[in-house]
């Protein structure tokens, strides 16, 4: 159950290894990797700069991870979120959940990604053909986060 907020890249394979090595009680490991797309709503994107609120970011990520552990029987979990300027194709975020059973791992991973998007203080500045601009929050992200609210276990 650890959280990292960092400028440098991470290695999804190594993260998976650290979560499961030496553990024989894990039946399912689900991971999500978010990457910088070269296209957003029809606009070309060359780079993405992630600004964040140091201190609060770690607090929020730890809070949502604790919430996931309270809702699902997780054996391990991990969140890595990068900040700074990233090029198209680069990794932004990694979320992994391990559980005895696959449904818990899938649901907890989707929950973490949905909540992270609306609760962790990150802001994306997109650079592309049309110049630079702050990415607007999506109503569908709020809806995705909201759907877990009534779903306490």
């Amino acid at each position, binding site marked *: 159950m650890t959280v990292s907020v960092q400028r440098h890249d991470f290695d999804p394979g190594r993260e998976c290894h650290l979560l499961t090595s030496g553990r024989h009680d894990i039946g399912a490991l689900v991971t999500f990797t*978010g990457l910088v797309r070269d296209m957003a709503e029809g606009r070309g994107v060359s780079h993405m700069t*992630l*600004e*964040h*609120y140091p*201190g*609060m970011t770690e*607090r929020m990520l730890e809070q949502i991870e604790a919430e996931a552990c309270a809702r699902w029987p997780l054996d391990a979990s991990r969140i890595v*979120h990068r900040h700074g300027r990233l090029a198209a194709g680069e990794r*932004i*975020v990694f979320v992994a959940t391990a559980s005895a059973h696959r449904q818990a791992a899938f649901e907890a991973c989707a929950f973490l*990604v949905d909540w*992270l*998007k*609306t*609760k*962790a*203080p*990150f*802001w*994306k*500045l997109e650079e592309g053909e049309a110049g630079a601009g*702050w*990415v*607007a*929050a999506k109503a569908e*992200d709020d809806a995705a986060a909201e759907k877990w609210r009534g779903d306490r276990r």
Partner: protein
Amino acid sequence: MKLLYFAWLRERVGLAQEEAEPPAEVRTVGALIDWLVGRGENYEAAFADRSLIRAAVNQDHAALDAPVGPGDEVAFFPPMTGG
């Protein structure tokens, strides 16, 4: 009181952070915004559309009616777009 601004709020205010001493009657996040807007055009532009303003008090998300006081760290920012 320590004030922090992020993303386009930071750009419009023209500051990433500042120390401020609002008068004693400023007791909520909403009242703090009202007081800031009176301080200059940069604040007015930053807080023009309040539906796009989110706040945190001492690094926890806070609503407009959340209390603020001396010594608090208050941050203002647009809706989050991480992940």
